[in-house]
């Protein structure tokens, strides 16, 4: 029997011990009337070999192409060592480290992760992960409302230049608690939040301001000015950042005079494959003073009964299994394995390596924009500094252009026209270090051909 080790003799002995005649007797507390029929719509079982053939066919249908889509998920080189080690049974098949003494491997990994992530963000502390970037941002909003002692407001300002799906997820998650997410429109020329558009909120009671860096268009926000403005309103600042970019761009802890208060984002670029959208992981860091409002697991270093250093889950009194309805969040299972991968990934690349990835990704995007400048009818939409991703306007409908390029095995970018109709036929294109100069040329040539 697949995955079941019992022999007939075992079953008989076990039933005898229990004192019943057959396994069916063990279900005798379930009302007869509720018992269900055989699950006929589920196919019959197959062998591992047959499954390999079946899934092999599915995999073939997922066409492998030259991908210039970014939009929140980024194709970076992942050292083979990362998942080779992450996939070891001891990491992969362990549970959440409730028994600290039997889980020092996982716990130390998380402690190292927290250290790396806090440092990358320039923040004091980090949690052990949330589900993904979008849900992490929603948790950040809830946390800001709890943490901001100077505000009674349930209003949070959110940059309209933030990833549309992040705004949607945040809405799904926070709206039931009566929290209002107010969208700040972005500047039509720069693609960033112009501080002028915030002036109407000056003096109002605002719980927090959410600032992306870079924003959804790849454009760089004036994080210093925005941070200082928010702090002047007694609002907390929530940064939503790309962790690769943070090796290069000013870290949230240094934004404005006092730095961001909470930082979150999508951890995927740090060693997690694109994988159709997940599992990724959301990261979250904050200032020390807010640590008791931080959702999710946190690992602390302590000593054992002999004085030896060791690691354990800590501050559990914030969590649902202790605090129940008063917990900082309902999160229980997080994205531990992806965090393990990210920790190994950051260790292999180091600060210098991640910076090189950022630089090479960005240099490729500059190269791309130079090539695009030669195409008549294709315009870069925003005139501000950017990081490794740009929005362009096409002379033809984006949808049909994308379809044409898809036929040539090119995924040309993310169609902005549904989320931002005001931008016209706009396409968001991303390059990482994985795109060679040759690939960029191929892409631009194909784009040129498709818009003739």
């Amino acid at each position: 029997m697949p995955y079941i080790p019992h022999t007939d003799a075992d079953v008989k002995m076990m039933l005898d011990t229990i004192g019943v005649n057959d396994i069916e007797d063990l279900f005798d507390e379930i009302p007869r009337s509720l018992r269900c029929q055989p699950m006929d719509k589920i196919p019959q079982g197959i062998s591992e070999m047959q499954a390999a053939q079946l899934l092999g066919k599915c995999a073939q249908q997922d066409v492998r192409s030259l991908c210039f889509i970014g939009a929140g998920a980024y194709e970076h080189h992942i050292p083979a060592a990362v998942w080779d080690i992450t996939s070891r049974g001891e990491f992969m098949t362990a549970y959440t480290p409730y028994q600290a003494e039997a889980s020092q491997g996982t716990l130390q990994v998380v402690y190292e992760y927290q250290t790396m992530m806090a440092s990358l963000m320039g923040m004091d502390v980090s949690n052990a992960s949330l589900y993904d970037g979008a849900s992490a941002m929603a948790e950040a909003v809830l946390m800001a409302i709890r943490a901001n002692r100077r505000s009674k407001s349930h209003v949070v300002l959110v940059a309209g230049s933030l990833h549309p799906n992040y705004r949607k997820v945040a809405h799904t998650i926070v709206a039931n608690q009566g929290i209002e997410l107010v969208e700040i429109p972005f500047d039509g020329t720069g693609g960033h939040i112009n501080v002028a558009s915030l002036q109407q909120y000056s003096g109002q009671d605002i719980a927090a301001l959410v600032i992306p860096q870079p924003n959804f268009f790849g454009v760089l926000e004036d994080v210093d000015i925005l941070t200082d403005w928010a702090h002047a309103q007694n609002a907390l600042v929530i940064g939503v950042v790309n962790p690769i970019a943070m090796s290069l761009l000013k870290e949230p802890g240094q934004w404005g005079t006092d730095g961001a208060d909470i930082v979150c984002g999508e951890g995927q670029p740090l060693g997690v494959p694109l994988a159709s959208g997940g599992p990724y992981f959301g990261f979250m860091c904050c200032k020390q003073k807010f640590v008791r409002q931080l959702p999710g697991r946190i690992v602390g270093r302590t000593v054992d009964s002999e004085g030896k250093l060791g690691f354990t889950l800590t501050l559990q009194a914030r969590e649902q299994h202790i605090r129940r309805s008063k917990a900082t969040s309902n999160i229980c299972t997080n994205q531990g394995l992806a965090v393990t991968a990210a920790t190994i990934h950051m260790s292999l690349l180091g600060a210098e390596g991640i910076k090189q990835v950022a630089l090479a990704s960005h240099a490729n995007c500059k190269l791309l924009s130079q090539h695009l400048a030669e195409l008549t009818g294709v315009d870069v939409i925003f005139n501000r500094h950017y990081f490794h991703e740009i929005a362009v306007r096409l002379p033809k409908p984006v949808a049909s252009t994308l379809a044409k390029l898809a036929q040539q095995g090119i995924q040309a970018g993310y169609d902005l026209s549904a989320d931002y109709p005001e931008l016209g036929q706009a396409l968001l294109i991303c390059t990482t270090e994985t795109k060679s100069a040759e690939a960029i040329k191929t892409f631009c040539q194909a784009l040129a051909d498709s818009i003739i």
Partner: protein
Amino acid sequence: MLIFEDSKPGRRAALQAPQAQADTLDIPSEFLRASKPCLPEVSELQVVRHFTRLAQKNFSIDTHFYPLGSCTMKYNPRGVHRLASLPAFLERHPLAPDVHSQGYLSCAYGLQEILKEITGMPAVALSPMAGAQGEFAGVAMIRAYHNSRGDKQRNEILVPDAAHGTNPASAVMCGYKVREIPTASDGDVDIEALKQIVGPQTAGIMLTNPSTLGVFDRRIEEISQLIHQAGGLLYYDGANLNAILGKVRPGDMGFDVIHLNLHKTFATPHGGGGPGCGPVAAGPRLAEYLPTPRVGKDGDSFYWLTEQDCPHSIGRMSAFMGNAGIILRAYIYCRLLGREGLHRVAEYATLNANYLMKCLAEVGFELAFPERRATHEFIVTLKKAAKTLKVNAMEVAKRLLDYGFHAPTTYFPLLIPECLLIEPTETESKEELDRFIAAMSSILEEMQHEPELVRQAPHTMPVHRLDDVKAAKELDLVWQAE
């Protein structure tokens, strides 16, 4: 040793980064970072060795029996992991066009169909990324339902006192007040108390059945009627589905919405904390509120249902499509087992639990519900031992580690004092159970004759008993160079 202690300025795993192109950097310095983050500077061998050694410090399914109640730590098939990790799946961008994604989409659709059959519910959304997110989605759907009917006075969700902590926490995140329902002495919900509590303010109830007490609530039909008559809806916490797969379906019990933990019943590995996946299945009343995105089928081709297709949806739960890799794993697992295999899961999980319960009782452990059948798990209480022998459940749990077994869940559910919640799962052999029984029996001896040995446990782990109080008081959450 920490990886940072291996670090030395200027060291690199040089093959892992592209050549820098710093000369081309056009970003003005006001946007740039001034100081380098503290990431380790180590060689590739140092990294491999460090993390390989760390891995060896973990207990895991692949190395140890792991009877952690409520967690369903069963074998995570390697074949499933392999097939879900095919390069084509790993390399696909979540926003890749549907024409480039038919393989993944067909698998996700296939899982939706399978889960419909298993739950007895007409519609499924796969995107919630863990059980708790599934709970949130389910309760948010209940709220959307009442709202759509203008039924806005319903501001309470009922939750049994034995429920998992995520239940009340999720209800609160949806803006509800939580009312606790007591448990009767037989382990079922105290139905008389429930009758007192239910009313026009009741939005719904969250139930786990079999409950986290390791028993199946025999009066589920009555409860269901009671709630529905009061205008409330029933939420099913599917974390314990392993106990009833193919035996009874939440839809048939009267539930309106359910989440499933793919990382429990469907054997996807738990990764030392995650990721999981918490699909939500809904009955006719709630199907239209399911979160987006879901997978639809048109003739032979599959596509993403968008917000336009689902105007009443509670909306998105994740930036993309949820934990696709876990979805794939669950699908493959279901295909491998097939209908017969899935059916057997509950049978053997239940057989193992009842056998273990019986044997532990025989060697002298006290059961929380000795008159009841175990489901896929059951509870031992050390209440008496704690009083007479001054050895508590936590200490017994630690001592088990020395015997090479992961501890059961301790101190949950909260209402059973000094409890051990034990879940063997169907993939463990009788021999393994017998070894566990022998270890427990020997610990019982120790409690009587060498209690200090148990109180000071563990003795054979990489560290001795850790000081949790110090950890919480003198917070040390990130490493600082001396």
